[in-house]
């Protein structure tokens, strides 16, 4: 493949952009390897945050550097994607985590630690006040 377009960048743009691109894509690769390898769902929930935090941020910074030289002005519209990822990633992971917690409680899964299970209601001859023990923190 021709490198003529890439030859137009001076070294003080090309080297930081190359560094950020390599760092971001390697972090994305590591995050998905963790997603593939980790054993429990609650471990796997943490691995893709590597992709969405510094993986995406470094790639977007490198893209901002390259486009700013190419357009001979400061091009920061990539940062819109960065801010969007920063806002939406906690929301999606919280929703998926709550869904998994709910499903594990219903199914009585053994992946869930003991104190996170909902306890069975007390038998009817017990006092009604103690029918449902207080739930531990989520």
């Amino acid at each position, binding site marked *: 493949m021709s*490198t003529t377009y*890439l*030859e137009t960048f001076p070294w003080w743009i090309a080297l930081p952009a190359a560094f950020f691109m*390599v760092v971001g894509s390697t972090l994305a690769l590591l995050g998905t390897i963790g997603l*593939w390898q980790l054993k429990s769902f609650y471990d796997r929930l943490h691995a893709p945050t590597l992709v969405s935090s510094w993986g*995406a941020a470094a790639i977007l910074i490198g893209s901002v550097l390259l486009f700013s030289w190419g357009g001979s002005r400061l091009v920061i519209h990539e940062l819109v994607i960065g801010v969007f990822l920063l806002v939406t990633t906690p929301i999606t992971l919280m929703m998926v985590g709550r*869904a998994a917690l709910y499903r594990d409680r219903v199914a009585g899964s053994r992946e869930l630690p003991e104190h996170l299970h909902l306890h069975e209601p007390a038998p009817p001859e017990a006092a009604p006040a103690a029918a449902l023990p207080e739930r531990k923190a989520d």
Partner: protein
Amino acid sequence: MTTGLILWLALTWAQIALALAACFSCLRLFKGPRAQDRVIGLDTLYFCAMLMLVVTGARLGTPFFYEASMVVGVVGFVATVTAAKFLIRGEVIE
């Protein structure tokens, strides 16, 4: 070794690594023992596709990949939230 070659190598490595990352998240998407694993795999696959579009746009120097990556990001967010809500309630719109 010119800086253009270094930048070429870095962008090629970025594309290869993101393709491998998409393959790993596809493995989790197909293998995932339960539905929530598949949702996480799909979310990560959306992220990898979006970053791949950003890297390709930076390599070719065209601004047209930016809108595509933006749309992929928004659709990925909506898809993941909808799937998570479906896993909790069994329906999306009540």
